Structure formats: C-alpha cells, structure tokens
C-alpha cells in the first residue's frame, strides 16, 4: 500500500504513454486523427526497408560511443587532476560544474556560434591554419561539432561522480603503493581505476542513455540532423517524423524500436559488464 502512489505515478506517466506508443505504432493515421487504420507491423516493415533508417542506427552508435568515451575519459582526467589540487580546489571544482547548469539547446547554440561557418571565432582560427571548416556541408565536421557540444555538457556530471569516487578511495592504499615504489601512472591503473569501476560503470550507463536521448536539444539547435543525415540520431528522427512531419505511426514505430534498444542495452550492461565491476 505504501508504494501505491509510486506505482500509480509510474503507470500514468511511464506505462501509459509507452503503451500508447506501441498502440500507435500498429496504426496508420492521418495528421488530424480523422482516419485510423490498423496496419499491424507494416510501419516496422517500412522502417527496416528504408536504408536511411538503418543508416541512422549507425550514426547513433558512432555518436553514443564517441560521446560516452570522450565524456568519461576527459572528466576522469579532470577529476584525477582536481583530486590532487590543494589550493583553489573549490574554485576549480565550481568552474567545472558550471556547464551542467546550461540547457542542452543553449549549449548547442553556444558551440554553433563558436564554430559557425562564416562568423565563428574558431572557424576563423581554423581558416588561418588552412583547415576548411564548414560543418553545414561536411558530415564528419558536423558530427564532431555535436559530439564536442554534447561531451562538454556532460563533463561536469561525470566529473562530480568521478571526484566523489576518487575521494572515497582510502589514502592508505595509494600511500602503501607509493612506498612500494609504484609510479603515479601505475598507481592509477592498478589501484585507483579498478576501485573506481562501480562509478565508471554507472556513468557509462548514464552517458549512453544521455547520448541516446538528451542530446536531442544539442542537435536540434545546431545541425538538425544534417548535412545529409550525418547527425541524424534515432531520437531526432523520431522527433522530426512525429512532431514536424506529423507521421504518427512511423514515429511511434521508431520510438518503440528505440525503447527496445535501450531496454536491451541496459540489460546487457547490467548482466555482463556489471559482473566485471568490483564493488
């Protein structure tokens, strides 16, 4: 009985919309919902016939891998540095946490301005170095831009957790190792990193989910999935087809697929990777 309110909230806000998405995904509807036909798995069949939808999978995989990898490694580096700082640690930490307070869309706009093909400051510098920077036409550069913006946005979050994790590692262990003559790098990889693995694992899950869903704002504010389809991740395609193009059936089918992927991913992560984590 005590969990009843929670169960009710879960049903109303999670299961109901999810069930509705599944229901819509079997239907073919006009934009205004005046005519509805039940078409079974036709929406799904159409999606998997579409080579561009499959391409979107690849883009999403590359994008999430890049975001998770760089997001984790950069923030781990920063946290390891911050852990050793004695003076001004407070100011340093505060500054690093700031980007987390920035909305994804704003982060996207910020970076888009810096990298704007004709007026961006970074573009100007790159041009000076002889690099032709034009993410509006070049897919790899567009991908780089959204990865940078997304990683930048997520670093603070990762940083906080890594720092907390680092600080919970008993000093005595590290000191013992250094007395034994282990170099700082060796100490990090053989003692700190394994002890940090629960945090790293947690952050890996969070970052992949972040890359899958929350980066939507960054992409909408910068590339809008282009050029061609270079940055069209699955969730952006769901939005474009469902909201902008009012294709409810196709969009619902996509979100059902997305739902399945995320469930599968989480299960895999908890079943296989978690075993290797030492708590």
């Amino acid at each position, binding site marked *: 009985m005590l969990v009843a309110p929670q169960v009710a909230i879960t049903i109303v806000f999670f299961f109901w919309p999810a069930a509705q998405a599944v229901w819509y995904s079997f239907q073919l509807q*006009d934009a205004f919902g005046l005519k509805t036909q039940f078409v079974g798995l036709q929406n799904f069949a*159409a999606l998997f016939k579409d080579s561009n939808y499959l391409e979107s999978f690849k883009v999403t995989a590359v994008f999430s891998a890049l975001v998770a990898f760089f997001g984790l490694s950069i923030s781990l580096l920063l946290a390891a540095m911050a852990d050793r700082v004695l003076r001004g640690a407070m100011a340093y930490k505060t500054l690093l946490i700031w980007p987390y307070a920035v909305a994804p869309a704003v982060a996207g706009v910020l970076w888009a301005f810096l990298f704007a093909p004709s007026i961006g400051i970074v573009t100007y510098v790159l041009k000076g170095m002889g690099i032709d920077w034009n993410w509006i036409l070049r897919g790899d550069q567009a991908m780089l831009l959204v990865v940078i913006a997304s990683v930048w946005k997520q670093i603070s979050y990762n940083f906080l957790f890594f720092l907390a994790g680092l600080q919970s590692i008993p000093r005595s262990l590290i000191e013992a190792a250094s007395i034994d003559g282990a170099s700082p790098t060796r100490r990090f990889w053989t003692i700190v990193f394994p002890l940090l693995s629960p945090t790293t694992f947690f952050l890996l899950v969070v970052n992949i989910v972040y890359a899958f869903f929350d980066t939507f704002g960054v992409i909408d504010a910068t590339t809008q999935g282009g050029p061609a389809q270079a940055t069209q991740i699955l969730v952006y395609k769901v939005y474009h*087809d469902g909201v902008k193009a009012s294709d409810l*059936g196709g969009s619902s089918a996509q979100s059902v697929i997305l739902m399945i992927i995320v469930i599968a991913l989480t299960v895999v992560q908890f079943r296989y990777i978690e075993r290797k984590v030492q708590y």
Partner: protein
Amino acid sequence: MKLHVFAPVALAAAFVALPAQAQTEIQWWHSMGGALGEALNGLADQFNASQKDYKVVTTYKGSYPESMTAAIAAFRAGNAPHLLQVFEVGTATMMAAKGAIVPVATVMAEANEPFDPKAYLPTVTGYYTDLKGNMLSFPFNSSTVMFYINMDAFKKAGLAPVAPKTWKEVITAAEKLKAAGQQCVYTTSWPSWMHIENFSAWHNVPIGTKQNGMGGLDTVFTINSPLHVRHIAMLGDMSKKGLFTYAGRTNQGDARFSSGECAMFSGSAGAQAGIKKAAKFDWSINFIPYHDDVAGAPQNSIIGGASVWIMGGKKPAEYKGIAKFMSFLSKPAVQMQWHTSTGYVPITQAAYEVTRASGFYDKNPGADMPTKQLTNKAPTANSKGLRFGNFVQGRTVIEEELENVFAGKKDAKTALDDAVRRGNEILRQFEAANK
C-alpha cells in the same frame, strides 16, 4: 504581501475583460515573428476597431511546423483555434483533413460575404484551390524566390553591375568574382524550394505526375529528369570549384548575402526587408536565372509562404465573424498595407494596381519584381504550384540528397534517383493514410 500588490491588478483585469465577453472571439494562430508579427497584429487591431461584434485574437505559436503541430494537437483535444496560418508545404495535409477544416469559399457563401477567387493572382489561386475550383484556404502571405546581386562586388571584379540572366552567365560572372578574390560567390536559401520546386516551374517541367500532385494522391516525383540532373550536377560542380557556398536548408543564406560575404544569392522575396536594413552596399533584386537552351523557359515562378485555414466544428456566429474578417483582409487597401510593410507580394491584381498607383514601386525599385516573376506567363500544369502529402518529410529528403551532391558524396543522378525513390515512399504512405 504579494497578494496585496497584485490584487488591484487582478481586479482591474477582471473589469477590463468583462466588456469583451459580449464580443465573439476569433482565435487566430500564426507564425509571424518580429516585425511581421507586428504587422499582422496591426491588421487584427484595425479590424477590431472597425466593428464591435467580433474580436480577432492573435497568438504567435512559433515556426510554421510548430504552429501546425500545435493546432493538430489542439484539434485532437477538441479545442482547435478558429483560424490557422499554414505554410505552403502543409497545404496537402490540410486539404486531406476534410473533417477538420471548412473551405473558405463555403464560409464566405454562407455568410453572404462577397468573395471572388479570380481576384487573386493565378499562381496564388491555383495553389490553394482543389480540382473542382473550390478555394479551400484564404491566401495570406505569399512570396517567391528571387535572385539578388551585390552590385559593389560586381564592380570590384570588373563586371557591369547587372544580374546574370542565365546560369551560363552566372558561372561566367562567378569565375570573375572568384578571381577577384570574392570569398563566397553564390549562395542560396531554401535549396529545395529554389533549385527543385521553383527551378521546375521556371523551366516548365513537372516536379511530380498528376499536375505536381494537384490531380490526386497517386502522384510520383519526377525530379530525376535529365534537366534536373544537369542542373544539380552543375551546382555540385560549382560547389567543388568554390563558386557555390552551401548555407543550409532554411534562410541561412540571407545573412551571408546581406553581410556582404556572398556576392550572388537566391532567396525569398521576403528577404528584401532584412537586406535593406543590413546591407552596406548597393544591391539589386532580379528574376532567377534559367537555362537558355530549354524551350519555353523562363515560365513563371511559384509561391511560397502561407495561407489561412478555417477550422471546423465552430459556432455559426463565429463563422460569420470569420467571413467578415476575411472580407476585411481582402480589401485592396489592407492588402497593400500588408504588402508594403512586409515585402510579401500583393496577392490580388487590385492590390498590385493600387500599390503601383500610389507610386510605391517608383520609390522602391525592384519591389514589383516578385509579382512580375510570378505572372511572367500564364501558369501551366507544371507551374501553378505543387501539392504533395507529407511534403515536410519530402522536402527533408530532397535537401538531404542535395547536400550529398554539394558535399561531393554522390553524383547528381544517383542523389536525385534516391530522392525520388525515398520521396515516393512518403507519398504512398500519405496516400494509404488518406484513402
């Protein structure tokens, strides 16, 4: 404490709101931001001041796709606005939603308000009329695509400051500009609208079968014809040589021309206002270029912009008010005010005549070019407009494939074949959903 501060305000608001109850309110959702929004509110205010029975309440609902989505959601929830401004690519979706909308001709006839679809420019009427000749939505803001040049940049490159008329001349001029050190030679806004849709109309070739989709839902795209392939290949080649700079899918090109970065530019007639404000150089507005070896070219260009749709399921008194408001908006003087304050084209012949007689075009050379381009010749089946279901998605597909060509990833033939194949899938989906 807070309550005390706000109590008088709330009280005052209650009193102010009271007299409005007696009026019939007409909700109008639109997508005109900034200066355009002010001009639109000006029209509503004038109408509200001109009579006491009805009050038009305007609400800005974001970009065109955003307000359309908002209205669809509102309709599904049972509280759609009375009037909705819908962009041209949403026309097919609205037309197919027979239970959700009421044709403007019907509303006007039932309210005994005079309404003559023939008063509009043929390219405008054609766009919003079904095959039986019923006008379904009320044409409001229309533009077309124009070709702008930076005359100062032309002079600097040793060229006469006259706009190239054909694409051959564009390339010759572009090479000279490039040689003179011009960073960005040519750019465009709205690539699909300019280089596929208007390009087709201007050369009198079809965009799709069944009169560009106007003749039925079983239309297919025909934008992989040799002429289309040749044109897109030319742009891809220009892009490779640095003669064409791609700016993006919407109006990003506008700023790159008005800042002086690009010397030639194709964009909406509505871009004039922004250019006038920002440009620190002499510029001119011209007809879009054509390929001179194509028989019959140039034909006429097609419109872009939006029309006002009347939503279904409202009270008779409200429809009466809507009819009155539409009559007000049809007045030549009102049309002229909208045209001259926004840069959108005058959509009735009468408004054009009134504006010309007022001397506006003498004071603003080039302001009548869009109308002249739209009425260059009597429109054919290929040039009166287009009507493709889910064209929001369709346009995205075209733009994605164009980007592949401009980036050198696909050749023009492959890209346009792919655009046709993917576009047709969307059309079949729409056909199935609206049978």
